[in-house]
């Protein structure tokens, strides 16, 4: 249950979800809302997975980077995920793998016109 409490507290800053498996996160200045889900869901421990997400408002020149780090460990993934556009306009981050149990910070950095905002949420792996 400790993991559940940690996840609840960590998500208290402006997130929500809609359909099952989807999470919505606001960027730090509130310009963007990211709606994302993992494939598979839930995120598996120490197994590859992908993130599929939309950014609203969207624009053709958005640049997006995805990463994940363990704040208590001061390290992140051992991989660099690759973000690409899908034909339906959504984004896909491949190559994700969270190799340790514990709390991970998942970050999505959205840049446009030289300005970057970060949407961030936590993932607790048992």
């Amino acid at each position, binding site marked *: *249950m400790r993991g559940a409490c940690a996840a609840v507290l960590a998500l208290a800053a402006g997130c929500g*979800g809609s359909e099952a*498996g989807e999470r919505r996160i606001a960027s730090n200045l509130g310009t963007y809302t990211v709606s994302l889900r993992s494939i598979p869901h*839930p995120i598996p421990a*120490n197994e590859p997975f992908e993130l599929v997400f939309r950014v609203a408002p969207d624009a053709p020149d958005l640049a997006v980077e995805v990463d994940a780090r363990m704040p208590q*460990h001061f390290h992140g993934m051992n*991989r660099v995920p690759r973000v690409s556009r899908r034909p339906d306009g959504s984004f896909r981050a491949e*190559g994700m*793998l969270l*190799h340790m149990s514990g709390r991970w910070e998942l970050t999505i950095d959205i840049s446009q016109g030289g300005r970057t905002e970060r949407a961030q949420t936590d993932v607790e792996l048992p």
Partner: protein
Amino acid sequence: MKRALFVALFAGALAGALLFMRTGPARPASGFEEFTAEEVEAILSHSPLGPPPPDPTNAVADQPGAARLGQMVFFDKRFSREGTVSCATCHDPAKGFGDGEALSTRFPLDRNVPTLWNTAYNRWWFWDGRADSAWSQALQPLENPREHGFRREHAVRLVRADARLRGAYEAVFGPMPEGPEADRPFANLGKAVAAYERKLLSRRSAFDVFAEGVRARDPAKAGALSAEARQGLKVFLRAQCRSCHGGPNFTDGEFHDLGIAPLRGGPAPSRHAGIALAKADPFNGKGAFSDRPGAGAAKLDFLAVRPESWGQVKTPTLRNVAKTGPYMHQGQFATLRAVVRFYSTMDGRIASAGHAEAILAPLRLAPTEAAALVAFLESLTDESADAGLLKPVE
């Protein structure tokens, strides 16, 4: 009650915000007072250990004929420059598929010989992960001048000239090429050795019987673990050993730096260099000899050389750990007691040149707790191995 109320309050206020959380199946009631529901959930995450994951880059990984050929090669000293070294010379079945030494006194190597038990579950091979498959790993010592000192052309010539080896090879891979091309048949020998090593499994320990008992609420099976080992299991969980030694194989399969002083050769880049070596290996999973390069690419292409990769070595499995000493990448600790003492005190820990694991702190275990943790580690031993795999093919 208080905790439940706390959770309910937050869950109500943040409905929908928890959808990414791992919910998983309902936790079974343990029926064992000494373990909390949270501990039971953790225990069950370590067992059972399923069959090894597929290796799509090795089409013969699960073929019995390939495993038989691989076993023949594994124990055959002719696959060396002087005819005196086989894979089993260092990976001795009687010594946990290691050599029982901290660092080899026979070969000028600066790494402890890793066990081959459960090697098929690895994501990376060697302490620095410079091989991305069991078959590419198997090829490197054959040509390393400090180990077998052999050459692929000689290996192929040996198989071609030996009726027994040739027959076993051709039964799996088809006609042995007669020309000078050696890379393909050499890669095939690696795949055969990997198929053999894939059968070296440690999956049925006293801990696994205990976990079955916890899952099924069967006190008889739960009794497979002694009271001391159960206490050690509690220490293992409390100390968060499973942060790195997680999952059913008791390893994350990835790389960490504990700050353990080197015995020989000074601090080494380890994983920092291993990534480039894995990507450059002509026998890697995305190369010309892979049976599914796309799968190999998916593994290699996302690899990142991070600053914290410097000095990191691979987390070994804890299954059969009582058989596989000395411990750590240079065998710095002769016994499990010494390993536990290190984690308990952190005495001798050095400042890392890279990124030391930030969560490591001395566990300050009482002597009874340290002994219990050793007892738990010993309970991860599987004695049910097929004896026919531990010796040359008859």
